[in-house]
């Protein structure tokens, strides 16, 4: 019987430690399966979040061997077997217990971003004309499953703890999806520049590297947003044109 050894972080905000567990390994198993097996057989109270087990809900984020990962999409077979596999919670958020962190800060940030504001419908039945080529980019951003792995890896949040000044890559993507939505008429650039700290991103691209949805966060969302923000600071006429032409 093949087995795997895991070192799982156990503890809460007051402190904790890695604990070692050995569990049976079966074909195709993912890290989340191993965690569940440990939970069912050895540690009933091991705290972990999950829902879909298919990389669609963004609940099971953790750091596996130090890498931010969805546990349900990380196969045991792809990890080195010569040493224990470490599984620990995300670092950019306060720990609740074991692998569960308090991610409510993200909800607060989202509420602060100006909501979608569409132009009046094009047709009487309340619908609009939008073409696939105009929405490809926005659809890329809307693939986000809110796993917050990008937030976890961004040094501005992780190391510098600038949660009050910077909204993080997830919400830059969110802003980009709204700003580039062909129907949207709101202007979020001043907020981005002032209260949301877009200038604090120094384009290290760590967020893009970890995104399980493969969203090109830096190149497709952040850099174009930065350009728009700069444009606005210097050229208010441009937004006017954008408003009129809808482009």
């Amino acid at each position, binding site marked *: 019987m093949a087995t795997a050894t895991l070192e799982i972080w156990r503890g809460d905000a007051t402190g904790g430690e890695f604990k070692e567990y050995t569990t049976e390994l079966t074909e195709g*198993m993912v890290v989340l399966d191993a965690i569940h097996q440990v*939970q069912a057989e050895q540690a009933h*109270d091991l705290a*972990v979040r999950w829902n879909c*087990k298919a990389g669609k*809900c963004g609940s099971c984020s953790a750091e596996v061997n130090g890498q931010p990962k969805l546990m349900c999409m990380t*196969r045991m077979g792809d990890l080195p077997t010569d040493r224990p596999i470490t599984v620990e919670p995300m670092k950019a958020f306060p720990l*609740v217990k074991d692998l569960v962190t*308090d991610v409510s800060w993200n909800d607060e940030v989202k509420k602060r971003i100006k909501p979608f504001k569409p132009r009046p419908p094009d047709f009487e039945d309340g619908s609009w*004309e939008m073409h696939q080529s105009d929405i490809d980019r926005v659809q890329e951003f809307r693939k986000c499953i809110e796993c917050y792995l990008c937030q976890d890896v961004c040094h501005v949040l992780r190391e510098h703890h600038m949660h009050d000044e910077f909204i993080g890559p997830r919400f830059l993507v969110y802003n980009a999806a709204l700003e580039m939505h062909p129907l949207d008429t709101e202007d979020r650039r001043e907020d981005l520049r002032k209260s949301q700290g877009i200038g604090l991103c120094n384009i290290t691209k760590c967020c893009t590297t970890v995104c399980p949805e493969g969203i090109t966060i830096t190149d497709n969302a952040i850099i174009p947003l930065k350009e728009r923000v700069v444009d606005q600071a210097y050229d208010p006429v441009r937004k006017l044109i954008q408003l009129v032409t809808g482009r």
Partner: protein
Amino acid sequence: MEVSRHEHDVLIIGSGGAGLRAAIEASAGGASVALVCKSLLGKAHTVMAEGGIAAALANVDERDRWEIHFADTMRGGQYLSNWKMAEIHAKESPGRVRELEEWGAVFDRTKDGKILQRNFGGHAHPRLAHVGDRTGLEMIRTLQDHGVHQGFDDYQECTVTRLLKDGERVVGAFGYDRESGNFRVFQAGAVILATGGLGRAFKITSNSWECTGDGHSLGYHAGADLIDMEFIQFHPTGMVWPPSVRGILVTEGVRGEGGALTNSEGRRFMYDDIPPLYVNQTADTPEEGWRYVTGDRDARRPAELLTRDHVARCIVREVKEGRGSPHGGVFLDISWIKEKIPNGAEHIKRKLPAMYHQFKALADIDITEEPMEVGPTTHYVMGGLRVDPDTQMCTVPGLFAAGECAAGLHGANRLGGNSLSDLLVFGQRAGKYAAAYANEHGRGTLEEAQIEEARKEALAPLERQDQTDGAGPYAVQFELQDMMQEKVGIVREEGTLSEAVEEIAALSRRADLTGVTGDRKFNPGWHTALDLRHLLTNSEACARAALERKESRGAHSRVDFPDKDKEWGGFTVVLKRGSDGNMEVRRDALPPIREDLQKIIEEHG
């Protein structure tokens, strides 16, 4: 011990599509709303929906109309559906889908810039609005992002364990915070259950841990009727290999895009057995089926797009008769369409990105190159709380239900895509009518004795000594799932169903002996012990209803009664908690259908 108290006009339990839509509606009318959910906001099971939302928008085929959607739903449900709900659903879903666009949803587009619609089993025309194969994510994110600006209060990772009553009327609920283990008491003028399905009662399932049917059971224990509980949808295509992913869904969208089901002999076996009800609408040859997929309006639907109950049974037959795939399923091949269209591989990746990724990452299979192995997986429960078709009120005053935990729309078998539309249409209605009810009746009074009882009940697993040698609630849950899979699964019969009822009783007694270790802080062992009671109630309801219905219809198939029975077509099976606490089973005659709707069925049937 901390118990915090909250007062609202409307309490909504569940924040999937149904709960969120209800919350938006009730808040819009000025009600103060509490939205409670077991996991984080935006993570509810709805997020996993793949294929699309059914609505007769007629964007792809202008011949589509609500009447045809209505007739398709009734036929799919084998005429057990509540016709009033089916009518409302077909009429209102287009507006509900457009509304999502107004709130920021970005659906895939037709060439002329409208919402694109795709083919799905049992729908006469391309009808499912979609975003690749991640429609549920688009829907829940749209509702969530719009919702958070509507002013309702959300209580995330809070599990309701009991409804509170004032006489006959439901006036609140008791629950605990998963994070801290502290208790909450909600007092409300009206309560909406939007807790989703119960797939976790079975071993092989596409459902998440949350799907323990809490709303079904909470409502039942508060005295509400459950109906149609014998109808559990086994989706024909779940992953079968490797073992750790068994049950994860492979969207019907694969077949909607032309995917072929074949057996080990390479035969497209779905063409060998086409049910009489569908002969006129089904292609004679795979060639005709492909023409349909590519938009030929004179062609008929491929046999792979027959209803789910039928496709699942055909797969079981192939496997049983020795023509299955190496790991006990059959083959689902989308790569073959490369012969038919230029840039086929790119097309597949664009239309089915999540499926491509899922198979690549979890099974080392490139679906643009080789076939998938698939087999049936527990997917959806047609049964649930009986509701008024207009208002969604249960048979207990003050209690409403919407979404998967409510019953009526889908009858004996749900059509793909009809759930997401159900959530929107009836979520909206539940929100509206619950707010009106609360407005009219005000808040009832809570009874402290009930709260104290609920508190004791919730603490019991932590306080009692474990008498199961440390196996704990997980072991009981696994045993229940194995048993349900085997005895209340796709094919049923009297003997094993009776055994199931007895085994559920025995497992319930065992569940009462399991203690859990650790404290109240985010303790999954404790959560599992509490959810287990709901699973047991629901399992009993399924088994008893399945025992009662002595025929095969839709998703319910009995070896000892293999045919559809005309007389049974006029009845629904009802389960209600008796005054002695036992589950009572009865049959209610279905109300006769309105004449104009009957005509529509005849015209389009």
